[in-house]
């Protein structure tokens, strides 16, 4: 998996609107060759590849952690409105026009909103909520975040805000710089560290809440810590790319047949799978011929939604049981 991610990252340096031979790309990466090529590879494509790996990774990790926490294979940040809420936080900053979008105000607002949304979800749905309740509450929260985003858009004095936000909500890694990397990476690292620290607690939880408690796991605080981790990771990611959905849902499922159902062992492979997925998707949007570039968030949703429907079909029996 590590090799695959590294390979995809290297390929991602090689694709873009300007055609360059692989040799030229490598030369430019290490500071040789044409000035233009050097800048293109090192200042446009390299930060993009780094962001794709880091953000894909944190989305996969968050998905795996949430699925472990809720003991539910359909859990993912995007299904429960966290990225939408984070996007609202970021949009609020843009719409108010108070801070530079390259400042830490953006991730801070996104993280705060992401935290609020996941927290609200768990507060509304309760401790051992069934799938149906979680999904309904998640739907309500993402609708609320969407409406709040539209409201911020209407009330803004920046006349370009509608277009900006439309692009934002599609999610994209285009033309990001190292400033964006510096903006997102610290928060992603914090989120990842927080989630990884809860591995053994998540494993204990997979045996059931009571067993976990008897093993000395404080389920209440575990819940809070995981929410915090997801909020940091997703908030930091959304602040620079806008919302990119469904990576967190798909990645753990791809890895589960390989590493089994232990949520602790699932975390790292899911992060790698997420990184590979987003990098591959980001390569695809640059390779697919189109007049204007396709946004990567659109592609992940196009792939993610059918996958989600397939999951629902597979889980139909369990779902039906929950209702009846």
């Amino acid at each position, binding site marked *: 998996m590590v090799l695959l991610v590294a390979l995809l990252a290297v390929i991602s340096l090689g694709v873009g609107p*300007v055609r360059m031979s692989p040799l030229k790309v490598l030369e430019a990466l290490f500071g040789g060759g044409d000035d*233009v090529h050097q800048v293109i590879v090192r200042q*446009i494509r390299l930060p993009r590849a780094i962001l794709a790996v880091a953000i894909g990774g944190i989305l996969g990790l968050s998905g795996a952690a949430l699925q472990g926490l809720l003991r539910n294979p359909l859990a993912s940040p995007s299904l429960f409105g966290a990225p939408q809420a984070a996007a609202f936080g970021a949009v609020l900053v843009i719409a108010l026009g108070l801070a530079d*979008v390259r400042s830490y105000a953006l991730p801070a607002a996104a993280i705060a909103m992401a935290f609020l949304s996941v927290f609200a979800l768990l507060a509304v749905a309760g401790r051992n909520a069934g799938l149906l309740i979680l999904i309904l509450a998640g739907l309500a929260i993402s609708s609320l975040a969407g409406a709040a985003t539209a409201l911020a858009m209407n009330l803004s004095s*920046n006349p370009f805000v509608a277009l900006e936000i439309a692009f934002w909500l599609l999610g994209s890694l285009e*033309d990001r710089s190292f400033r964006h990397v510096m903006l997102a990476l610290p928060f992603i690292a914090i989120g990842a560290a927080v989630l990884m620290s809860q591995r053994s607690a998540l494993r204990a939880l997979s045996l059931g809440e009571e067993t976990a408690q008897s093993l000395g796991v404080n389920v209440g605080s575990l819940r809070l810590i995981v929410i915090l981790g997801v909020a940091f990771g997703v908030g930091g990611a959304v602040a620079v790319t806008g919302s990119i959905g469904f990576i967190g849902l798909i990645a753990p499922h791809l890895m589960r047949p390989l590493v089994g159902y232990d949520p602790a062992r699932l975390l790292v492979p899911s992060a790698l799978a997420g990184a590979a997925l987003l990098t591959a998707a980001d390569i695809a949007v640059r390779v697919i011929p189109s007049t204007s*570039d396709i946004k990567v968030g659109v592609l992940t949703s196009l792939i993610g939604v059918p996958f989600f429907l397939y999951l629902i079909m597979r889980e139909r029996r369990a779902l039906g049981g929950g209702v009846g």
Partner: protein
Amino acid sequence: MAVAPAHAAALPRVASINACTDQLLVALADPAQILGLGPYARDNARWGGSADAHRYPRLSGEAEDVLVLRPDIVVASSFTKRATRDLLKAHGETLVAFDIAQSLDESKAQIRKMGEITRHPDRAEAEVARIDAAIARTRQFVARKRYRVLPVSRRGWVSGGRSLMSSLLAEVGLSNAAGELGLQFGGFASLEAILKLRPDFIVVSSDSDFAEDEGRAFLMHPALDHFYPPSKRLVVPERLTVCGGPAVADALDRIVSEIRRAEREAGGKEDD
């Protein structure tokens, strides 16, 4: 508010619900003729005369408040919402729609058109003469060479060959490199494509270092900064080019002075 002073009674009273018609109207009409201006009239980033706009009622851009004012003529853009235009017409308002000016000639034609609407053709001719004077001044200026320039706006939007910006650049003797990107009317160009194109200068609307959104952050990308530091950027404020009103005269002067500055800065480095 809707009642005009007696001396202006003979002249038509006009309401504008579009930012560009606002500019034309305020430039040509008597203050008493102006019943209201559109919602963006007070935005000083997009109009040099926005301070004047506070003297007039601010309209929402929708049909409702216009109907209450009962103007003789409503001026709007041909891109104003169809529903708004239809509603106004259905209630017997005389609606005149202005296209988006895509060249200097179209700008002049629009000024004359507004001159007729407000019944001040003399003022319109004076504004047109001011533009012609700016064109004449511009023609005396000869740049060292026919530079290839690329007008880049937020998010990498490039004004194409058929745009007011292109027409202004051509008047100054510059060529718009957008054509080489295959963009006729305009479109988005990626950073990589802009760097590969290597125009001599890029035309931007502001030299501020504040990125209010990702669209503006595009213009401050380190890769773009590397090849286009301030000395390679021609700064032409948006308020001079966003509408084809009287401001285009100032836009021409501005482009010339920016080229002079850029040549001076480049010359200082190369020759001395």
